């Protein structure tokens, strides 16, 4: 269902096999002498996402190339942001190397980190 929503640098990605998204608040937290928290909020809503795709070697290579640039404009669920695509990993689906016309099917996972 996310297939039409994840767009990296104007390229709509295949439907992920799994997808998770989280938002983080960047802050420095200190402990007060009374034991309470004292904090400086640097930033709200820093987005991180992790997607896993089961794709052919063709898409595997495209996804890999996306992780090898500094940042990418990414749109997820209609929200545009600049993200770093990192932690690429690819795993061959068992026995898929025999699928004709491909170099096999691959399970590729990528982390999306908003800069």
């Amino acid at each position, binding site marked *: 269902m996310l297939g039409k929503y994840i767009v990296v640098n104007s390229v709509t990605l295949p439907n992920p096999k799994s997808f998770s998204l989280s938002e983080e608040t960047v*802050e*420095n937290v*200190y*402990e*007060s*002498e*009374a*034991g*309470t*928290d*004292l*904090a*400086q*909020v*640097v930033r709200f809503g820093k987005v991180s996402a992790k997607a896993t795709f089961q794709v052919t070697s063709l898409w595997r290579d495209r996804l890999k190339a996306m992780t090898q640039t500094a940042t990418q404009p990414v749109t997820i669920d209609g929200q545009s942001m600049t993200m770093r695509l990192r932690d690429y990993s690819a795993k061959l689906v068992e026995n898929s190397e025999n699928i004709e016309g491909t170099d096999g099917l691959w399970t590729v996972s990528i982390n999306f980190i908003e800069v």
Partner: protein
Amino acid sequence: MYSVSADYLTALAQPVHKYRLSGTVGTEAFTQSNIISGSLSISNKVSEGSEIKLGSVYTGELRATFTGLSIARGSWVGKKITLSEGLQLADESFEDVPLGAFTIAEATHKADGVAVVAYDAMTAFDKSRNDLTDTGTAYDFLSLMCQKCGVTLGMTSADVAALTNGTETLSIYSENDIETWRDLLSWIAQTLCSVATINRDGELELRQYSDSSNATIDETHRFTGCSFSDFTTYYTGMSVVNIALRQTEYKSVTPDDGLTYNLGSNPLVQGDYELVQNIIDDFSTVQLVPFSAQMLGGAIYDLCDCLTFSGGIAAGAVCGIMGFTWKYNGAYSVSGFGSNPALATAKSKAEKDIEAIYNTIGEEINQMSVVQNSSAVTCGEDTETSILTYNFEVTQEENTTMVDVSVVMTSSASETEVDDVYTLSDIVAHLSFYVDGSEVNVYAPEFIVDEGKDTMTFNYSLSGLSVGAHEFDIRLEMSGGSGSIAVGDVHEMLWGYGITFEVYVKSVEIKRLPNNTVYMLNSNFDYTGLMVGAAYNNGLVDDVTADCDITPGDGTQATQPGVYEVSVVYNDGSNDYEMSFDALVVNGCFFNENTFKAGMMQTGICVMDDEGNVSSVTSLQSITNDHEYINLITSGSDAKKFRFIRNGLVSQQYTLTKADGTLTSLGYCGIPGGFVYQYKVESKKYRLVKVVGDYELGVVSEEVLMEINRTDTDYGFIYGTFSQYGVYTGHIIYGFGNHTVTVPNGDSVRTCGFIDTRTGEYRDTDFPISTWPGMVCMDDGSLYALLPYKQDTYPDPTQILVGFYAWLADGTEIKIDMTSDFNLMCHGNTGGASAILRYDEENDCLVAYAISREATGQGYNFKAMKGFVLDLRGNIEREIPIPAYIDIPYASGLTDATKVRLALNGSTAQTGVVDGINYYPYWSGQRLLFTEANYFNSEGKNSPMKNIMVNIPCVPSQTKERIVVIDSLYWEDSPNSIVRATV
């Protein structure tokens, strides 16, 4: 504490903060996005270690790593950084707080950005203090140093006056360690019981510590890990070194149960130790707990703010911020320093030792004394020299004396040569003790001392001396080198029983002259600053000034001009000690040697001090050196005599003994090193007189007689100056002739030229001068001359223009016509003009002033009209303001013809109020002369004035006396009216 809104304080009290950052580097703006996380910090302090410091002048430092700014590589250093931190308020808007202004001193390019280190404006005061002003209020000094160093003073005169000793007139003691403006700033801050720092606007500010709390920080608003001392630091005593007497003065409050603060050798409180009492009176009211705490921002607290820490481990500690480190989106660390008064009042080890001896011997100890040498000692090789002598009396047959001695000696080794090999000998000091001239063979210590400064300590005891008076003597003999011992460096503590030590005055001398030894006629002698010291046989010196008989007495009116020998007599109960110093009483022109600047060459009759004050020096023709000038007597029965005035001391009169009929007049020139010259016009020959030593007249050399190889006879005055080396070393004399020509309107103007003694060549210029030029002769032989001359565009004869000439050592001639920028108006047809040119060594530039002279009918008024900074090619770099002018109508018809100083900026219009109650107007043509008035400047500072000449826009009757009420008086830099008054 920086003033913020109530909303800000509400947001600050919240446990979670959100900040933004904004600022500029040079002209480029930045935000928090341009700062690498955790890299931005600002730190500053006013104290450190274990004491609350006074007089600190620390520099604030900013460190940051910038990224994403388009500043060219190589152009970071020197750029100014300003920044503000904004705290998000409840309505999500931000309120910004400025954090200061810093100048980048270092920039390092790194992978993540450009790491910079920047400092605040305190570093600007690390500038050599090239000013001789040594008297004024703290505000005067602060204003001057800020002006000299290009820093804005962030205080009004009222702000400074509100500080301790802020209204006192301070004098810098001549023996001081002040090299830079920052040194002076430190002493001023200390004298004002304060610290100096740069505020958030980049301005200099003096602050005082306070224990009046600005804010309370409870345990929920500070980080865990804070620490607070369990004692309170406070000071109840203050010591300062008395430089003249080489001893310590101590002031305290009651009860004196706190710490003692040492002011060091503060040169601003010498001789007036009430200033020290004022400092400790105020400083003792501050009681602060040393601490270290961290909290969230925002950075609204300032150095010297007071915080109360409540709850938790703090228990209401009242603390002063003496240092802070602020990090953007990080901890705001603040700290305060101090030590425990309880420990400071504990007995020292030495005191305990002495006390132990008392306990052992009990009441038999009846004498204890400290003795030190009162004069310096030099001990040559293989020569026995007495280093300390004192007298004592034995009163009982059973007697014992115990002595601890320390000797600080500076020694140098002698060289020995064997077969062309030179080696330094071991330096050995042999000490021996004599009683009544006979050596006591109980102990004769030897020390091998290091070359340079070394300390020898030893002790000995004497017993069984016969009842009666004795003299004890310690002698030193050196081998392998020689040694010298300064005053007070033989220090002996002795005690015993059965003896008494006789302490008596050995000598009395004037340790310090009064602040002023030159007085106007009919003013009162004022001996403030005089110090007479009585030296005792134990080496200690007492200030006995108050016990001296001084004639003429302090406050006596000086009714006759001339040199007074002021007699000072001290009686110690049995003997009179007679001393004296010279005081000069002058009639007419007032001068103050402190306003003259070393290296400034004046010509003609104009002298300008550092602040641009112009004065006439009709009887002080030449400045020859720093603080030295020649009082040349040109008329009357004492003509052709002169005396020297150096540092306020006046020499006897000297006569030019070789005035063998060829001397027609005395010149107006002097040069560093003490040359004057005489010359005769008729033969066009010149002669120099060299002054050697202190006021000793040297030989008038025939060899330096020089003839100008010019064919016509038209030579008049020489206004010239000489190279620093003078003719004795065969370098250059520059002279200006007086070749008079008639110009179309019938006036005569002079041409000028110069002489190069290397070639004997006289060179004319085509540059007509009207009156006295200003000249600077450089060490390399280059001559720079600022020549006022009459413009040839008559019929406006009153217009005086100024041109610039330079003859460089390589022969290059520079001629700059500055008429478009540098004209000045001469007031009155009888007036003239002159110029001042001086070399600003520090900035390597020439500073030029054009001077107008106005005949008042009672004398002359002088006014600096324009000032410029010139480069050494004569190009005008910028105009500089004329800070003041002096108006000196040395009116012979007035009984109170005293100094007149109109301390007004002539460059911009100013308003002021004249207190017109106490004047009597004197008509002089179109002008009013007020014998007394007060001028209040824009900050309310009152400057009493005398003999103020005011132009009146109408011509009143000169035959009738009339009462004139001036309801306002203002000044403007208008060509035709210096001063106007509404009558």
